[in-house]
């Protein structure tokens, strides 16, 4: 197997961590200020991706492959979450016209 080095070993791990923090914050802002439930799900995917980036960055820093395996697992969980969340959304949208997450407040009592 040929050696694959993209030259990434010159890069500091903290740069990746900072980028992941920025992406996570962007996702948090989206969840907090957007009103469309679909966009909120998209922003959650963004946050999960940022967390994945930290996992892989630490995996390289510590020379431990388990970080990458964890990233794979979280990718699976994110896919399952997207599927179930979107199915719930489709069901809600089918029954009534929701254009704002604030309309979904039945559980408030």
């Amino acid at each position: 197997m040929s050696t694959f080095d993209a030259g990434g070993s010159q890069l500091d791990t903290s740069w990746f961590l900072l980028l992941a923090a920025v992406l996570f914050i962007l996702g948090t802002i989206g969840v907090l200020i957007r009103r469309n439930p679909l966009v909120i799900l998209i922003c959650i995917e963004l946050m999960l991706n940022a967390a994945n980036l930290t996992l892989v960055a630490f995996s390289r820093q510590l020379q431990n492959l388990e970080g990458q395996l964890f990233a794979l697992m979280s990718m699976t969980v994110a896919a399952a979450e997207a599927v179930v969340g979107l199915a719930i959304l489709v069901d809600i949208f089918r029954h009534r016209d929701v254009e704002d997450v604030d309309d979904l407040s039945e559980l408030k009592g």
Partner: protein
Amino acid sequence: MAIAIFFVAAALAVAGGIGVITFRQPIRSVLSLVVVMIALSILFLLLSAQFIFVAQVIVYAGAVMVLFLFVIALLGPAKEIAKGRLRFQTWLSALFVLALFGLIWAMLQGVQYRQPEQTDLSTFGTVQSIGIGLFTKYLYPFELTSILLLVAAIGAIYLSRREGDDR
């Protein structure tokens, strides 16, 4: 060279992230998220995680995003209207996000992670080594993952069934 690639990919990712939260139409948010995914997959390649790179492109940028696009096509392009209700939410969320970013920033100052020492890149992160890890030490979680996916698929089919189909 790698540094240039890193900064281009990072700029793309941040621009896509800003696009996700600023575009009014959901379809544009989804397409911005695809940009973020592709940029992140380049970063995974820089971190010598080849298998994660492939999985990111196929699973995220491919499957999950197509799922989002299908749902948008099903529900119709609804533009988001900014309503006047609860205006203080925006300011409260800005405050909260600033506090969160400050916390993360402070934490990042504490860690001084520099470049890792050279490793054997012919084995680290390849499909082979990932497979060995997945099928020996982590075989049990790996099998549980399949049950999770099965449950998610059944749940999605059940939730999105038509009205009157439940005989």
